[in-house]
């Protein structure tokens, strides 16, 4: 197993190299003046006139051949320098590491309960096929699936913030922000919930949860349908298997058969979907982050792309490649745990 994991990890640099070459090649199809937009994002910056524009192009080496620009960038990467992001106004590496805790906090708080809920609802729907429980669960999840995220998110904001004032946007209230930025508050992880607990500050912890509630509910609900439906289908298929029938014939209790024998095997396709879902969410949930004014990787990536901020786009691309490869590996390693018949070679 270790050997397998090691070999998969060795593939990582190859994937990253191919990806970087692809993105870099794409950006080189733009003219130097277009790529200058990363450094001069608004017309204001170009008021210095044509001389100034030519100097900026020269300064940033945008006229240099592809191999020189790529080589310069790769050279920097190898020394741990991902470049400077004009969008984030900080080095790309710093931007990614400072935004990652916020995205991880949001993603894990939404992903774990979302996954458990999907498994539960999918199993129930499969077990109670074509009965009212199945219809209700299917209606509930398809209803969420058919909602565009921005519509559901805005509804959440309107009801739970504008009307009820329960779940405000942002990551913290003004007063909590003042506490977190004070000298007495130690930043351990960058995740507000964890840091507030480690600092023993429950009011900040609850304020942080208040701000997380609406985006978490949104993420759970709009992503629920996919995994629930896969779980339901998988459960249906498993329940028709011979070994399930045998278990029932042996006189095992129905609950034991369904939950212990059938559900465990039905989880395999859900694990695959969940791995992809988690990877997607760790790449940032752009719309959710934007609507709820939650600064995370998704917003950063979207803004960088709009600004043609190539160092940031490349840096984010590499980060995402790592996430995909690692999560795929994790999924592969989980399979044998769920089904011993699946062996890693």
């Amino acid at each position, binding site marked *: 197993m270790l050997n397998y994991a090691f070999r998969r990890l060795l593939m990582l640099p190859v994937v990253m190299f191919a990806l970087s070459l692809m993105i870099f090649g794409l950006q080189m199809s733009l003219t130097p003046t*277009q790529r200058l937009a990363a450094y001069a994002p608004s017309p204001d910056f170009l008021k210095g006139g*044509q001389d100034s524009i030519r100097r900026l192009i020269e300064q940033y080496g945008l006229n240099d051949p592809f191999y020189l620009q790529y080589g310069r960038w790769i050279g920097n990467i190898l020394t741990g320098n991902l470049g400077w992001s004009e969008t984030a106004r900080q080095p790309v590496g710093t931007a990614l590491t400072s935004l990652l805790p*916020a995205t991880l906090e949001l993603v894990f708080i939404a992903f774990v309960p979302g996954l458990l809920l999907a498994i539960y609802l999918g199993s129930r729907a499969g077990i109670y096929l074509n009965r009212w429980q199945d219809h209700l669960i299917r209606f509930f999840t398809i209803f969420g699936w058919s909602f565009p995220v921005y519509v559901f998110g805005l509804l959440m904001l309107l009801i739970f913030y*504008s009307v009820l004032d329960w779940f405000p946007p942002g990551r913290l209230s003004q007063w909590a922000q003042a506490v977190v930025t004070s000298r007495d508050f130690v930043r351990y992880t960058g995740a507000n919930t964890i840091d507030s607990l480690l600092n023993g500050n429950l009011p900040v912890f609850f304020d942080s949860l208040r701000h997380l509630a609406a985006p978490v509910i949104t993420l759970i609900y709009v992503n629920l349908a996919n995994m629930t439906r896969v779980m339901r289908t998988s459960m249906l298929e498993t329940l028709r298997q011979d070994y399930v029938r045998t278990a029932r014939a042996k006189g095992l209790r129905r609950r034991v058969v369904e939950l212990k024998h059938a559900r465990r095997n039905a989880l395999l396709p859900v694990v695959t979907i969940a791995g992809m879902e988690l990877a997607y969410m760790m790449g940032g949930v752009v719309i959710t982050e934007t609507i709820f004014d939650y600064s995370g990787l998704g917003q950063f990536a979207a803004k960088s792309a709009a600004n043609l901020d190539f160092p940031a786009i490349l840096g984010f691309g590499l980060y995402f490649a790592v996430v995909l490869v690692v999560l795929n590996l994790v999924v592969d390693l989980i399979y044998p745990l769920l089904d011993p018949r699946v062996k890693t070679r």
Partner: protein
Amino acid sequence: MKRTLAVAISIALGFAVAPATAQTKNPGTFVFLWPDDIQSFDPAYIANTPSSYGVLNVYSRLLNYKGSEISEFVPAISTEVPSLENGLIKQAEDGSVSYTFPIRKDIHTHKVGIKGSDGKISWEYFDDLTAEQKSAIEPGYGEITPDDVRYSFLRAILMGQSWMSNAITEVVTAGKYTDITKWVETEGKIAEIGDATPELLRKVYDQLASQITVEGDKVVFKLPKAFPATLGVMALPFGTSIVDKEWVASVGGWDGSGDTWMKYYRPELGDDPLFDVENGTGPFMLEEWNRADRRITLKRFENYFMGPASLERVVMRTVPEWTTRRLQLLSGDADYVTAPIEFLDELAKTDGVKVVDGLPKVFGRGIFFGWPVDETDNPAIGSGKLDGKGIPPDFFADIDVRKGFNYAQNYDALLKQVLLGKTVQSRGPTVRGIMGYRPDSPVYSYDPKKAAEHFKKAFDGKLWETGFTMTAYVQEGTPQGTAALSALQQGLQRINPKFRLQIQSLPWASISDKLNNRAKPASALTYMGWGPDYSDPGGPLGAASYYLSPTGLVGGMVGQGYRDLMTEKFKPLLDEAWASSDPAVREPIYAKLQKMSYDYATTQFLWEDFGYIVTRSNVEGYVNNMILYGAWDFYPIKKNAE
């Protein structure tokens, strides 16, 4: 039963909403939500309006604009506003002019240098010091002196980074050099500043330093000849904000030596030591800049030399989504939000929200003609011939074409229906408040007959017969620009159905690519807008020069044909006006230039841009200064109880 339930829910919702709206949230803290971002806190680096919001509030300048006036000033770090009357502006017989600024005493920066027992200097917040600690402040470390003022200007000029800081170079050289790069390259007769020898760099430094001198408690600027916009440039936050020399050196910046300045020339943003820190003398201090969360917190400086501000804190957050900004304003979590224009009427009717509308700006919008354009594989000009399927590259060289286009635009409809009557038609490069603007100067109006007359004369009548097809460009996300081009498109179609104008929205990077850094522009018709950077219409960054000088901003973008026209007809008058410091002589010339821009139909001038602000109704004190492009000076802002 249902009725009872409905009443119960209503009461419950009423209780839930009541606490959100009945009390002032975050008293003393002004929460400012906008979609923009600040580039840097270094006054010598910044070049755009959003970035000026930071520097404007944490640093001070020699002079400030007097409220919303754009040509009147009040003292700040200088105790007086120089004028001929008070003898602080002197004109010598050789034509040179000196401006003297007496420097105010006892101005401290936010952090001052305290000498420890080990002889080392530590920088401490002045507001936190005890009387005993104050007595240990190392002289000059955090106390603004005339030497700091001189240093600040030298640093901004020598850094050569921002086009706005380069305006000071133009002031001290009276327009001879546009920036320090040109100065060095011209002085040393070299192609690249990188080739300059240490001796040459020292020589240029000495030349510059000799023009900004300290005389006792005064700083004197010696200009080789008059530069009418001098005080206007001094009051802008770009480059002219005063920094403490000792502090800048302590954080790794230039030490003020004439031999080392090249090391600090045009730094990358992240390498600039003043990029994310400040130590100004302004009413607010930078408490936190969380770039991941895109949040800037400014804290009140209790020892501000004009007295502490009313607000304790200002929190500036970048919130790109309008609905989120809006809900935060309505709930009282935000005190100011940037709002789209189409929501103004609705917001003005909302309880607890205040809209101040129709604020003037020095910014003109127009459709810019370019000629000759790039004929190689250029979709903007179709076939590249006058055959109905395209236009020739020099299409707009014909004055009748330009006039025909200008008469084909429905300005009234745009002003009433698109701009909702909030502004006025633009009369040329100079807008209201700028010298040379006259409310009775001629403007084009929609006149299909006159348009047809001109189009029939164009290209000896061939244009009318063949018609044309061309593409005009507008930056995406500018609905007013798209509306202006649509109105022109319809106007042209009504005049002659063979006149086909296509409209394409592009990202700014693509528009810029069609106009900049090219031998010939790739766009013949582009919707844009530009505003001057000081109130004087002349000089390199004035309104008239921007539009009408062959070396101006617009001239650089719209082709050699346009530049030739400017050189032949406009430049002599621009030079004549700039050579004089007498407004009585200059005003008629700029008015004539304005009229000429109409006669030659240089551009389709559309409307003067306007500003507006949307705040909670308990916010007071905003001052709109149009030459600062409405930048928020938080010092006079008050947040009352709701």
